[in-house]
C-alpha cells in the first residue's frame, strides 16, 4: 500500500532541495506547492512538457483560416460587390480580421488547455484537508511524497530535509 505524506517547509530553498533527497532514499516526490514559481522544480519532479503551446498554435491557425474562408466566401461568392473596380478577392485586406481573431482564439485555446492540463476548475482537493495548507498560497512550501515501503522512513527523510511538519494525506 502506498502512503502519501505532505511535508511543510519554511522556505523555497529547502523545498527545492527536498525532491532529490526523497528520490535518493528510494521514495517518490510527486508534487511541490509554493506561493511563487520556483525555478527548476518542475524538472526535478519530471513533470514533462505541456502541450499548451501546440494547442494555442492549432487554435489560432484554425480560427484564422476559418475567418479568412468566411471573408473570402462572403466577399467573392455570396455577396460580390464591385467597389471602384477593385478585385473581389482583395486578400491583402482580408488578412487583418483573421489575424486579430486568430490571436484571440489562440489565447482562448491556451487558457482552456491550461485549465484542462491542471484539472482546473476543481471544487475540492485532498490537499486542502492538510492543516496549514492555506499558507501554500502565502508564505509556506509543501512537498507531496509517496512511499511504497515504510512511511516512517519517508517521514524521517522529510524531517531531515528540513520539514517543520509532516502530515499524512488521506485520499478517499
Amino acid at each position, binding site marked *: 500500500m502506498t502512503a502519501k505524506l505532505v511535508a511543510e517547509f519554511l522556505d523555497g530553498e529547502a523545498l527545492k532541495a527536498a525532491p532529490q533527497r526523497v528520490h535518493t532514499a528510494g521514495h517518490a516526490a510527486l508534487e511541490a506547492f509554493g506561493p511563487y*514559481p520556483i525555478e527548476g522544480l518542475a524538472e526535478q519532479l519530471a513533470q514533462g512538457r505541456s502541450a499548451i503551446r501546440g494547442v494555442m498554435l492549432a487554435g489560432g491557425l484554425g480560427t484564422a483560416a476559418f475567418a479568412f474562408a468566411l471573408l473570402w466566401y462572403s466577399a467573392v461568392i455570396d455577396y460580390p460587390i464591385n467597389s471602384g473596380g477593385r478585385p473581389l478577392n482583395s486578400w491583402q485586406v*482580408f488578412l487583418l480580421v483573421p489575424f486579430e481573431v486568430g490571436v484571440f482564439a489562440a489565447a482562448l485555446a491556451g487558457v482552456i488547455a491550461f485549465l484542462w492540463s491542471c484539472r482546473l476548475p476543481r471544487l475540492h482537493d485532498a*490537499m486542502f484537508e492538510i492543516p496549514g495548507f492555506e499558507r501554500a498560497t502565502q508564505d509556506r512550501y509543501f512537498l507531496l511524497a509517496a512511499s511504497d515501503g515504510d512511511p516512517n522512513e519517508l517521514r524521517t527523510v522529510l524531517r531531515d530535509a528540513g520539514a517543520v511538519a509532516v502530515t499524512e494525506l488521506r485520499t478517499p
Partner: protein
Amino acid sequence: MSEVLVPQHPPAHRWISAARAGDATVTQAVADPLFTGFGKIWWLALLITLPFVLWLFVAIAWLFYQGIGIWGINSTVVWGVAIANYVWWIGIGNAGTLISAMLLLTRQRWRASINRFAEAMTLFAVAIAGLMPIVHLGRPIYAYWLAPYPNTMALWPQWRSALVWDFWAILSYLLFSLLFWYVSLIPDLATMRDRTPHRAGQLLYGAFAMGWRGSSREWSRLQTLHTTMAALGVPLVCSVHSIVGLDFAASLMAGWQESIFPPYFVVGAMYSGFAMVVVLAAAIRWGLSLQAIITHRHFEVMARILLMASIVMFYSYATEWFMGWYGGEHADREVVRFEFTGTYAPLYWALLACNCLIPQLLWWPFARRSLFILIPVAIAINIGMWLERILIVWNTLSHGYMPSLWRAFHFTFWDWSFLVAPLGFFAFLFLVFVRLVPSISMFDVRELAHQEAAA
C-alpha cells in the same frame, strides 16, 4: 494602512526598498488593506467619481435620444471628440498589455510591481474606447451589423472597410486583455481566498481562483501560457493601434493618407499609456502605502521610456511636416501650414509643448526621481496626446480639398461631457478594482523579492 513593508533610504535593494521583504510581509502589505477597508479617502474618491458616471450615462442617453447633432460636428468636420477619445483611450488601453507583455518577454524584473494595475488600466480604457465608435455611429441600434451573421437581408459586412477592422481589432483585443489579466490573477485570487476572514470573500475569491493550489505543475503551465500569451500580445497590440491608424491612413484625405500612421500611432499609444501608468502608479503607491514595492527607481525607468517615446514622437511629427513639403502636393502643404497658423494653431503649439518640449525635462536625473516633476510631466503628456488626436481629426477635416467647405469645429456642452465624464468613469472603475482585487501581483513580487535577496 499597511506598514509592514518599511521602505528604506537608501533603498535596500534595486527594486524593493525594504530591507526584508519576505513572502508573508509582501502578502500582508498587498492583501490586507482589501480586508480592512481603505477608510474615508477611498469613499471620498468614489463619491467624487459617482457624478461623472451619472453624467456619462445621461450624456449617452441624451445622445441616443437626440442623435449626434448635439455635438459640435458639422457636415465638414464630420468626426469630433468621440473619434479623438476613441484613439486616445485605446492608446492608453494598449499600453497596459504592451508594457506587461514586452517587459515580461525582455525579462525586466521590475514589471512585477506595475503589471497588474497596468493591465487593469488596459481593460477599463479599452472598454471605454469601444464605446466611442458606437456612440459615434449615428444609428447605434445597428452596431450589430458589423458582425457577420445569417440575416434575412442576405447582407455581409464590407471587409474592406476600416470600421469593420476596428470592430474585430477592439473586440479581439478586449477579450484577449481580459484573459491575459485573469490568467496572471488566478494565483493571487487563491491567496485572497486563503487569507480572507469573511465567508463571502472565501466563496467569491474561491470561485474565481478555481481551486488553484500552487503546485509546481500549475505554476509551470501558467508560466508557459503567460509567456506565450505575452508573445502573442505584443504583435496584437501593435496591430490594434495600427488598425486605428489605418482608419485615417486608408482614406484619401490630405494629412491622413500617410504610411507613417500605423507605427506613429503605436508609439503614441505607448507614450500616453506609460504616462497614465506613471500617474496611476503614484496614486496606488500613495493610496496603499506601497512605497517599498513601487520605488523611485520604477518611476525613473518609466521616465526614461517616456523621454525616449517623446523623441520618437517628435521625429514622427517632423517626418509628417517633411513629407508634407517633400511630397509636393499642394493640399498636403496647406494642411501643414494650417496646423501651424490656422484656426487651431494655439492648440497645435500646446501639443508640441506637451509632447515634445516639456518631457525634455526628463533628461535630468533629479526630474526623473522627483514625483513633483514627473507627475505633472505625465499629465502634460496625456493632455498633449489628446490634443494630437483631436487635431489629427480637426486639421484635416477643417481644411480639405475644397476651400468652400472649410469650416471649424466648435465645442458644445455635450462634447465636453464626452471628454470629461469618461475620465470620471475610468477613475470609478479603477477605484472599484483596487478595492476588490490585489492591485499588485503578489506572486511576482514574492519572486522578485527572492531574486533581490539572492542577488
